[in-house]
């Protein structure tokens, strides 16, 4: 039993925190609202040069061979900065799925060959990968036909960065597909969070582009774990900023942070974060182990058990982390009062990221629904 991160992982996380502090201050987040792609291509380029995009890619594909344990603190640091970057879609979900598809290339499917091409482009940052993956028990993955009169094979899905990406990993009925930008149509759906680039994607699943050998459920869990880590970071920043604010802001002749009602709000936020964080780290560990088992076949644990355990860890973590982010958003807005309700104040940048991240890749109650099912209820 060992919980601590390696020194290398710690240094990496601290380095990235510094990069975000310098390169992604609130003004930069705000600037992304008006950018066509929704994120800073300049900062993305820096991360690519630093090798950040290569973390989750296998060494034999030119990556760093890391896993979710190497990634989880990076996602948390990105959340603290409310960094609007496609880290989740591209690094946490896209690249591992492409790598697994490439591993299955021996099967000769078209999807496998294409994924080899996209993997190297994704690692270098030349291409952007996005992902829209559903899993049973969270959002129902029955596929949604566009409308009754249209071609019934056309599916719709809402995917972040779909219009900006070069290639998308999409799910349909428990299988993953690799869709080139030219193979799907996007209709941008403006989000409450101006840094999100959500589009309605219309596409037709094509058996030739199916990613054989890649588990949709594991891929979904990668996204949910990364989103959970991001939620913890968002909540931590909102708490820190609000603590500073209520120490300064005076009413009735003393800091509002000296009043018990305010203290108890913030103590509850601090508690929610402290209890979500280790569960998110445990989920990252479980996902990394599950991936290893999946690659190597199983030794001690049956694959079914490994999948169930992993999904339990992930759904527990995402429900706790989403709740922590939602609680932090609600309480921190309340403790700021009217100033926090303005567009000018930076708090709204984090609030909106929290509202959107807490419900993406499964909301808290959707993950509890999935967890209850996994527990056999």
């Amino acid at each position, binding site marked *: 039993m060992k919980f601590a991160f390696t020194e290398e992982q710690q240094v990496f996380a601290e380095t990235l925190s510094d990069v975000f502090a310098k390169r992604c201050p609130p003004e930069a987040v705000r600037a992304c609202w008006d950018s066509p792609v929704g994120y800073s291509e300049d900062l993305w380029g820096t991360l690519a040069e630093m090798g950040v995009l290569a973390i989750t890619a296998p060494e034999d594909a030119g990556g760093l061979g890391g896993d979710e344990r190497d990634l989880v603190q990076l996602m948390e640091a990105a959340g603290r900065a409310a960094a609007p970057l496609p880290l989740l879609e591209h690094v946490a979900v896209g690249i591992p799925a492409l790598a697994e598809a490439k591993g299955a290339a021996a099967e000769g499917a078209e999807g496998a060959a294409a994924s080899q091409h996209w993997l190297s482009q994704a690692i270098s940052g030349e291409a952007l990968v996005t992902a829209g993956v559903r899993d049973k028990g969270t959002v129902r993955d029955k596929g949604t036909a566009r409308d009754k009169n249209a071609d019934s094979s056309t599916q719709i899905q809402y995917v972040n960065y779909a219009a900006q990406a070069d290639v998308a990993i999409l799910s349909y009925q428990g299988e993953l597909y690799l869709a080139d930008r030219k193979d799907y149509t996007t209709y941008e759906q403006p989000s409450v969070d101006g840094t999100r680039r959500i589009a309605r994607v219309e596409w037709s699943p094509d058996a030739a582009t199916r990613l054989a050998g890649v588990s949709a459920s594991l891929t979904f869990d990668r996204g949910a774990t990364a989103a959970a880590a991001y939620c913890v970071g968002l909540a931590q920043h909102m708490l820190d900023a609000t603590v500073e604010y209520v120490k300064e802001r005076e009413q009735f002749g003393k800091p509002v942070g*000296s009043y018990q009602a305010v203290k108890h709000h913030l103590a509850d936020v601090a508690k929610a974060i402290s209890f979500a964080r280790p569960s998110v780290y445990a989920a990252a560990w479980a996902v990394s182990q599950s991936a290893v088992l999946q690659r190597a076949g199983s030794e001690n644990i049956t694959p079914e058990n490994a999948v169930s355990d992993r999904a339990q860890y992930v759904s527990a973590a995402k429900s706790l982390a989403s709740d922590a982010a939602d609680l932090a958003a609600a309480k921190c807005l309340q403790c700021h009062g009217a100033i926090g309700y303005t567009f000018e104040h930076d708090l709204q940048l984090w609030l909106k990221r929290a509202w959107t991240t807490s419900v993406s890749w499964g909301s808290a109650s959707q993950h509890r629904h999935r967890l209850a099912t996994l*527990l056999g209820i």
Partner: protein
Amino acid sequence: MDLTFTPAEQTFRDEIRSWLRANTPTEPLKSMDTPDGFEQHREWEKKLFAAGWSVPAWPEKYGGRDCSLVEWLLYEEEYWASDAPGRVSANGVSLLAPTIFEFATDEQQERFLLPMASGEEIWSQGWSEPNAGSDLAALSTRAVRDGEWFVLNGQKTWCSRGAFADWFFCLVRTDPEAERHRGLSYLLIPKDTEGLTVRPVARIDGEPGFAELFFEDARVHESNLLGEEGQGWAVAMATTGSERGLNLRAPGRFMAAADKLVELGKSLSDPALVNSAEDATETEVAAGTTDAVARDEIARCWAESRAYRWVCYEAAERLAGGEALGSEASFMKIFWSELDVAINATALNMLGERAEFTAAAEDADRGGAWMDAYLFALSGPIYAGTNEIQRNIVAERVLGLPRR
């Protein structure tokens, strides 16, 4: 990061698991807050001690196994998963003992630890007073020096297990002139002290789980002073660290409770309970149901029980690495006490009209254990410093908000 247990840890776990399987009483013991039940629980403590399982984290010379914190957490997981009896010695073993290890003289350690580990001497805490609850430092029980003796006058209250306990660990005022936190001392007091009257007080469940202590010129020898005279507050705060943090309520207890809640949820969503369409509604109500809200609550309780588990393993690792736990222990106390209430409230909600049944009711689920556990859980947010006090501590000492 590797959350698998080492072979040594697994061996340890297997050992306690098989001992419990062979030795846990098949019939539940009577309530430890009844005279018979108290003695039954004392006998169980003696059995644990004889096998070396009453205090595994203590040094061997006091009956322990010197096990690591991770092993202790595993021990607690196995203990509660096995449905073994509650620990009547918990106040001594979990609250007083850490303080004895830190502050007691060698003579005191020799005198007190072994009988505590073996269940021969069961301890109760005498801190609260009628006018000193959350504001503990307002306590007024006086202890006046008379040579080698302290002469006590005053009243203690809400002493858990006090009705049948053998010893009390008390906080008393030795210097009324000093600043209120500085005039206190920590005394260990036997129940047969002349001038001490112990009056049992029924708790909410009707059993004498509490006692009041009345001191009328009661004499306590200075050899029973724990730590320095006038240092009682500092000594006591070391105890509250244990009380609020890892020692008193390990996650295993709540993991086991959440697992039982999952089982209840499964059993009440079993379609076999419903015999036919006509009597479906009637049968469901009588037997209880796992509706969508209950399902959500069960999953929340289960996730939180595991969250507490990971928090504790992570904390244990830092403690083993020489770091102190400090005020974050207050997080843990809020968390487990509110989780405990939620687990049992969720069960009672599902049980519907069977929820109110006591152990005497033939149709009670698990022998009325849910209502018993609920009543016990309700004390959690109050004792060991109310959760409001804990939230103040978190806000002021962890977040750094101004005291006033």
